[in-house]
């Protein structure tokens, strides 16, 4: 395969970022938006063609005679050489998951570019917005095609920074500023774990290269020589620390707190970064390193447990939120946790590692329907000028296109056949059941909750009762075509994506196999989802007091969930009370008063000492003479005495 196309996939968004960033202010809003969208469009075409070539061309670089797909490094140039073995290269690795991610990223990114033409119309800093979007697309694409773990870390940081810039897009709004700060610092903290993990892993394996590590994971294990630290093997430590990086980016509990706040950013940004692409980077990281994770059962167990806890937690919280973007944010956290669990329970011996495939499948379908839901939410917010569903209701009559597409999104996420979410979620549940009954039941319950809170949201927005919109002076209506077109496209994808034969494209060892539905699991999960939807219908279809009653009956739980189980308060306590007041301030005080005080004390002592003896040097000659005479006298006396003795 030629190197130009992959290079262009990365270079185009970067050039667009530099161009719009530097020259954006010189051009009109429209011009900048169209340029950015066109650039992304071209990238989309290139990425599609690359993915298509990879999967279907039959090129011997990409598929061997036995039908196994291969990992192919298109280019890889040296960026920084630490030692002979530890070299950071920037390259382009094409394999099933990176090809799939190329498609996901460019699709969603292009949709968001297009959508933003309408949504961000007339916003100040429109050019800046498109520049940041391009920067993000560049970083994210660089992340997924990384050939080595350090390249991934580089782009990992870059997506973090572009996410920071986009969350804080409305920089005059204090809440947006603090949300962006929080997002950056929390993920940075997680990245510290990632970095230390890389340090440990690279020290033992003497390589950053993914292919070297994953093609012979037993060598990775062997290279550690069975070293242990605090009871766990060094490899477990490294993998868990790397997973910590993934927890930060993918908003796994307890590092999830930044994601709900990140909704302060413009809604299309939430759709792109905080729903479809960046937040799944953690899943992608674990998937990338999966063969190495297989070497350490403990690490995979931690992945599973963290994922399962997060899934349940986020689903419960999502049932209580009133801000529609926050509901979607918690739903995102929960769904990403599904993917994590799928990876955690995946074992090669269970159905050819179905969990891995399911995780990637769910990543793909989730990206589509979650972006759809977010963009739909953006259209609603655009029409109603509020994030709260209490300001909405009965909107199905006013915004038919948004209504239908949003409903499709809800059905997809709830796992109703034949929508996309059904197929991917089903595979995850199969993997969970096969691994351990407990995880299977647990995740089925969470799937039920998912259906419930999504339809709760759906009914509150589109049914319930209709507020008097005329009174506020404007009647909500469907958005312009730039906004509805992406909705329709994504809705279509959400309907059909489930029929993609994912098992033949993306598997953990890149061997194709047929997926087949496990009818028991499928029926159970659909039944649970339908029951949950029915409950939601009863509670929220028309305005009634059932939900309040239920909330009151479990008041403690409800309040706790509404306040997100006080995680934010805990973090504020840790950062403000402990880090600032118990660490930073005392250190600053210590520096000023003890360290600096000591230095000043030396100076003061010198000053005092000179003050004490300066009286001797009075300048009064009369005193000098007196002292001189007395001295002479004394000397004389002493001499005389000495002589006499």
């Amino acid at each position, binding site marked *: 395969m030629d190197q130009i196309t992959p290079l262009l996939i990365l270079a185009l968004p970067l050039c667009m970022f530099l161009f719009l960033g530097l020259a954006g202010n010189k051009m009109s809003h429209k011009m900048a938006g169209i340029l950015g969208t066109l650039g992304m469009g071209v990238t989309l075409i290139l990425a599609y063609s690359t993915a298509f070539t990879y999967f279907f061309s039959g090129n011997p670089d990409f598929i061997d005679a036995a039908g196994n797909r291969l990992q192919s490094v298109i280019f890889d140039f040296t960026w920084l050489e630490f030692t002979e073995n530890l070299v950071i290269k920037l390259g382009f690795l094409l394999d099933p998951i990176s090809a799939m991610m190329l498609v996901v990223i460019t699709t969603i990114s292009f949709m968001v570019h297009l959508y933003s033409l309408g949504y961000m119309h007339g916003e100040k800093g429109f050019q800046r917005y498109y520049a940041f979007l391009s920067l993000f697309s560049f970083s994210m694409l660089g992340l997924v095609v990384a050939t080595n773990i350090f390249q991934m870390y580089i782009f990992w940081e870059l997506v973090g920074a572009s996410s920071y810039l986009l969350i804080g897009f409305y920089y005059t709004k204090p809440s947006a500023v603090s949300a962006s700060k929080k997002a950056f610092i929390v993920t940075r903290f997680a990245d510290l774990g990632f970095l230390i993990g890389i340090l440990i892993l690279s020290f033992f394996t003497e390589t950053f290269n993914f292919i070297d590590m994953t093609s012979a994971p037993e060598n990775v294990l062997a290279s550690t020589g069975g070293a242990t630290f605090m009871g766990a093997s060094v490899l477990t430590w490294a993998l868990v620390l790397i997973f910590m990086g993934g927890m930060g980016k993918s908003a796994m509990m307890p590092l999830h707190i930044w994601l709900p706040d990140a909704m302060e950013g413009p809604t299309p940004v939430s759709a792109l970064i905080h729903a479809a692409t960046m937040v799944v980077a953690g899943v992608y990281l674990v998937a990338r390193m999966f063969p190495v994770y297989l070497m350490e059962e403990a690490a995979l167990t931690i992945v599973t447990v963290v994922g399962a806890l997060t899934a349940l937690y986020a689903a419960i919280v999502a049932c209580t939120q009133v801000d529609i973007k926050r509901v979607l944010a918690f739903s995102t956290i929960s769904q990403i946790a599904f993917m994590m669990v799928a990876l955690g329970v995946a074992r090669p011996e269970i159905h050819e590692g179905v969990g891995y495939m399911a995780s990637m499948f769910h990543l793909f379908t989730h990206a589509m329907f979650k972006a759809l839901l977010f963009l739909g939410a953006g259209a609603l917010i655009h029409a109603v000028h509020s994030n709260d569903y209490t300001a909405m209701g009965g909107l199905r009559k006013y915004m038919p296109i948004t209504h239908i597409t949003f409903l499709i999104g809800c059905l997809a996420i709830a796992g109703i056949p034949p929508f996309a979410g059904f197929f991917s979620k089903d595979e995850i549940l199969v993997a969970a059941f096969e691994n351990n009954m407990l995880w299977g039941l647990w995740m089925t319950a969470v799937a039920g909750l998912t259906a419930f809170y999504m339809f709760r949201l759906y009914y509150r927005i589109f049914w319930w009762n209709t507020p008097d919109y005329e009174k506020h002076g404007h009647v909500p209506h469907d958005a312009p075509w730039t906004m509805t077109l992406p909705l329709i496209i994504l809705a279509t994808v959400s309907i059909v994506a489930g029929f993609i034969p994912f098992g033949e494209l993306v598997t953990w060892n890149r061997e194709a196999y047929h997926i087949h539905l496990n009818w028991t699991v499928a029926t159970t999960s659909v039944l649970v989802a339908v029951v949950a939807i029915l409950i939601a219908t009863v509670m929220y279809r028309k305005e009634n007091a059932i939900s309040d009653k239920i909330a009151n009956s479990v008041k403690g739980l409800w309040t706790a969930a509404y306040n997100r189980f006080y995680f934010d308060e805990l973090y504020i306590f840790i950062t403000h009370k402990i880090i600032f007041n118990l660490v930073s301030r005392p250190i600053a005080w210590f520096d000023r008063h003890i360290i600096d005080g000591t230095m000043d004390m030396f100076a003061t002592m010198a000053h005092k000492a000179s003050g004490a003896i*300066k009286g001797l040097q*009075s*300048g*009064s000659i*009369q005193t000098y*003479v*007196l002292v001189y*005479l007395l001295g002479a006298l004394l000397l004389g006396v002493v001499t005389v005495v000495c002589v006499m003795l």
Partner: protein
Amino acid sequence: MDITLMYYLIPSLVMFCCGVYGFITRKNMIAILISLELMLNAVDINFVVFNRFLFPGQLEGMFFTLFAIAIAAAETALAIAIIINIFRVAKNIDVRDLTKMKF
């Protein structure tokens, strides 16, 4: 009665001691100057007398005294000039008060 060396040396010693005492205790600059002159003249007397009694054939002591007197005159003139100037500036020639240039 024979005028011996002692007859000169005792008054000169008294003069010198007066000078030293005055120099140490006086606060008025003119008085200090006078004390200084007293000491100087006491020394002059000694020079002359020692020359006269001990080395009658030589004149070094005499010459030294002449030099000392000349220098003392110049020095007195200079000192008086300084004192007058100080008085003009500070309206005072008490050494205890003239601490402006200290430290």
